[in-house]
Structures are given as C-alpha cells and as structure tokens.
C-alpha cells in the first residue's frame, strides 16, 4: 500500500518535471522569436548567431523530452489523462522545435537583407505587427499549456485567423511594390520568406493550443476548422 502511494507520487513528479522541461523549451523558443523580431527591427545582426546557437539547445531538449516520454510510457504505462498529457507533449515539442526553426529562418533572412545593404524599414510596421501577434500567440499557447487553460487555447486558435489575414495583406502589398519597382524584388523576396516564417510560427502556436485542448478535454479538434474552437 505504502509503496504504491510512493510510486504514484513519484510518477506525478515525473510528469510535472516533463511539463517543466517542455515549458523551458518553450521559453527558449519564445526568446528566439522575440530576438529574431528585434533583429528585424533594429538591424543588429549580432543576435543572429545567438539565435542559431539557441536552436541547438532547443533541438537537444526536443530529443531529451521525446526520450522521457518514451520512458514514461514504457515504465509507468499511463492511462487516461496522464496518457493524453504524454502524447500531447510529444506533439507539442515537435511544433515548438519547428517554431524555433522558423525563428532561425527569420534571423537568417534579416542578415541577408542587412548585409545586402538594404533597410526593410518601409515594410517594418506591417511585419512587426504580424510578428508581435505571432509571438503573443506562442506565449499564450505556452501559458495555456502551463495552466491547462482551454479557454486561452481556444483564443489562440481564433487569433491564428487574424495572423493569416494579415500575412496575406502583406504579401499583396509586397507584390504591388515589386510591380512598381523591380529593384525591390530581391529584398521583397527575403521579406516574403520572413513573413511566411512568422505566419508559420502562428500555425505552430495554434497546433500547440489544439494539443492543450486534447490533453484537457480529450477532444481532438485538429483539421476541424475554427468553429471547433468556439
């Protein structure tokens, strides 16, 4: 009797540590994204290197967490909500890692633009706004995971629609620019890459939120359209 109590609390501790690791990885990704945005706004390409370095740590954490998940499943055979938590986590880390990769793409795009001697400032406002929105989505998705708050998760899923709309309007604007003045094409293509990466970060935040809803409610609302998040 005593032993089983001990084991189950040990199990709880394992799960709680796993969650903390996921959130730490999330923290690294948040930092990467916000550093990438800063680099875009200020043109300080020195931070690009640290973003790439952080990515290495994110990758390591991803592998370590996946490993922990496999261990927990093999050793503890979790059921019901515990099992959903472990399954959800293994998907969340994939999305976080990809979001980190997108941040790296932004950083590299910024470096290309500034090293080419261009200033992206004329598109600055739109892109920065898009980036702030994506960053706040990823932050809220992680908050929702930490608090297992499905309402917050749903609001992140809804916010993704706005980010998509804004992304499309930036692309339209860039197309106009390129048609007016072909000399801007090189820079514009780089900026499209950056905007695309930001939009993808929003998508990953949405996926994380969907997993949070799965973990809490056991409902899989992927590919069900935004009505599912009402």
């Amino acid at each position: 009797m005593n032993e089983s109590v001990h084991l189950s609390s040990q199990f709880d501790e394992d799960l709680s540590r796993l969650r903390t690791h996921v959130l730490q990885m999330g923290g690294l990704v948040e930092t990467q994204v916000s550093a990438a945005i800063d680099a875009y706004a200020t043109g300080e390409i020195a931070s690009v290197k640290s973003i790439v370095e952080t990515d290495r740590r994110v990758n390591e954490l991803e592998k370590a967490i996946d490993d922990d998940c496999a261990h927990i499943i093999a050793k503890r055979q979790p059921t019901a909500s515990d099992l959903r938590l472990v399954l959800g986590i293994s998907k969340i880390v994939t999305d976080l890692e990809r979001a980190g990769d997108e941040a790296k793409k932004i950083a590299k795009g910024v470096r290309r633009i500034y090293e080419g001697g261009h200033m992206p400032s004329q598109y600055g406002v739109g892109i920065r706004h898009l980036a702030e929105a994506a960053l706040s989505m990823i932050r809220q998705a992680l908050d929702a995971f930490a608090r297992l708050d499905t309402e917050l998760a749903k609001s992140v899923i809804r916010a993704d629609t706005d980010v998509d709309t804004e992304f499309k309007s930036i692309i339209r604007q860039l197309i106009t620019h390129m048609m007016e003045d072909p000399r801007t094409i090189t820079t514009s293509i780089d900026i499209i890459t950056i905007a695309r990466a930001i939009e993808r970060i929003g998508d990953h935040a949405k996926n994380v939120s969907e997993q949070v809803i799965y973990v809490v409610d056991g409902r899989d609302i992927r590919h069900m359209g935004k009505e599912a998040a009402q």
Partner: protein
Amino acid sequence: MSSSLIRALLLAVLAAVVAYPIGHFVVPWAGWTFFCASLGLQMVFHFKNFARLDRWSYAPVVDDSLEGEGAWDGIFGRLYRHEKDLRAQIAARDEEIRMLIAAGQALTDGVVLLDDHNQILFCNTTAEDQLGLVIRTDRGQPVVNMVRQPEFVAYLQGEDFSRPLTLRSERGEDRVLSIYVIPYAGNRRLMQVKDVTQTDRLDRMRRDFVANVSHELRTPLTVLAGFLETLQEIDVDRDEQKRFLEMMSEQSLRMQSIVQDLLTLSSIESAPPPEADVVDMVNIVDKLRRDAEALSAGRHQIVVESDGQGDLRGSEPELVSAFGNLVANAVRYTPPGGTVRILWHASKNGAEFAVQDTGIGIDAKHIPRLTERFYRIDRGRSRDAGGTGLGLAIVKHSLNRHQAQLEIKSTPGVGSRFAARFPASRVVGV
C-alpha cells in the same frame, strides 16, 4: 472531582442503599429488581446525553443545541466554551493573516513566495503584473513554468543569489526588472521583483551621453589633427593650404557650436526660473517666417497660420531659440517643394505653437528618444545637415522651464508635427 460527578455517583449509591433493605426485609428479587431498574433509568438518561454528544462531535457547531442535563450540563458547557474560544482564535488569526497578505499586496515591489521546489505559494498583484502570473490558477505551479525566459531559469537553478538578476521582461512593453531571491525558513524562497526601467534608461542615457560627447568632439578633432600633421610634414602650395585651413576652421567652428550648445544646455538646467516678461508672439511668428524663408531660399513653401492674438509670459531669448530650432529642423528635413507650416493658437485654456512639415518623417520607435542628447536616428544624416545633436534637448528643456510640453507626432514619408503646449497661466492677451 466535580460536584456533578459526585451527584451521579451518589444517585447510584442511593439506589443501592434503598434496594438493600428491600432485598433484606421483603424478598431478594424485589431488591435486585429495584436496583437494576434504577440503574437502568440512569443508564437511559446518560445514554441520551451520550448520543447527543456523539452526534455533535461529528460536526461541532457553536449553538444552543449543545445543552445537556444533570451531570452532562457542565461537560457540554465547557465544550461549548472551548469550541467558541477556538473559533474566535481562528477568526483573529485569519484576520491577522489577511492583514499580512494585504501588506504584501501594498508593496510597490513584486513579491513571490516559493516553496522548496520553486513552486509558487503566493504572489502579490504587482508581481502578477510584472511577471504575467495569475495567483488564482498558478499557485503550486513551478515558477519557471510561467516565467520561462532562459536567463531566469538559469539564475534560479544556478543557486547563486548574491547578485540580483536583471531581466528584460518579455511580457511588458520593454520593462526591465531586477530580481532578488532571498532564502528564508529553510528551503523556501522569497523573490523580490523591482521595476528598474526608469533607472536603466537613465543609466543608459548617461553612458550614451559621455560616449556621444567624446565621439562628437573627437571627429572634428581628428580632422584638425590630420590637417595639422599634413601641414607640418608636407610642403603644400598656397591654394591647397588655403583649402586645408578653410576645412580646419569649419571643423573648429563645429566643435565650438557643440561646446556652445552643451553650455547652453547646462546653463538652462541650472538657471533660476525664467523671467515673466511678456513675449510678443505675433512679432516672433513673423520673424520666424522670415528666418525660415531665408534658410529655405525659396525651396519650400512657408505658411503661417496664426490667430494673431495671445502672447506668452517667459524669457524671450529662450523661447525664440526653441521655436527657431523647431522651424529650422522642419526646413532642413523637408525635401524641396515641401510645405512648412508655422501655427500659433492661443485661447483661455492655453496656447499651442506648432511646426508642421511634409518632410521625411520619423519612425515611431525613435520619437520617445528624440530629445535625448546626441540621439541620432541616422548617424550620418543629421551631422551632414549641420546639427549638433543637442537642438531638441535644448528645446525640450527650455519649454519645460516654461511648463510647456513638447508633443511630437510623425508618420514616416508623410511629415512631422512638433507642438509646444503652454498652460493657461503662461498665456496673456486672450
């Protein structure tokens, strides 16, 4: 032994005393029957009270239902008082705890209490606001789950709290937080979070100022030294020499104007409040227009929009120099063909002097720092335009001395509007 207990005992003895003669003189079974019956009656009486106590003990409440009979009355009474005292004590303690929490909430610094696993036990609203916590849902959560910045996680795990951690908050708008971790009661920790955004900004301004002064003075000095060296070592012809000397005098004039501006700034800062002469604004606006036209040399359209009434109280040279600076900036940063508007409106509620241009505009992120000394949006450009980098700092100080606010609005590519708003107390003649 209390009297009620003795009474209960005496009743039993009394039954025995009465039963004995009955058993002895009448028939033994009658005595026994009497004895058993009287004990049984007592038993029923006690059992009734016992059942009541038993029922009460499951959910002790303080009310009058706790009333016993006979020997039980005393016991019930004492229990009732005990329960009542206990509740009063708990209430007092609750109140004390509530007061302590209220004191924690009243602190202007953020406070977070952590247990030995760095899980959140308590945090006040300031900390909630600073770190994005919600105590209602986050109690018991490891703090690193919510404050996920890698620097913070590393600091908390590093276990070296001799120096505070300076953290640029990701949640608030560019807030700088200083976090102290203080161990208490064994393994528990108290996190104190100070908002040092202002101090940090001042520090940065001071550092930037020293660096900038040195840089601004060194540039012309390098040029001067270079030419001097050339003139000393190489024989140059007269024309060349003349050209060199012209460039040298240009650079020395530049240094002079920087030093002059620095002196102006420091004298404005330390000077007593400006005198309250009446400054004739209609006259000044007209003079500003003529200056602007001279500076523009026909490349811009200069428009004056004035009510033609209302004057200011203050120091004329300071105000003229501040307004002149705003006008000159507008002319300088507006491409040829643009328009510069000089606006003067005064009413009973105050007055506004504004300069609006159709120039290159300023990106929003630069606006808050524009009046810092030597702050430059684009390092090369403003120096080419002949600025010392101190103009707007002087303007802001001069205006502040007249209780006026400098309000800057700008859209890149569209134009800027610099407005000086004076309070009603500074306005006369309306």
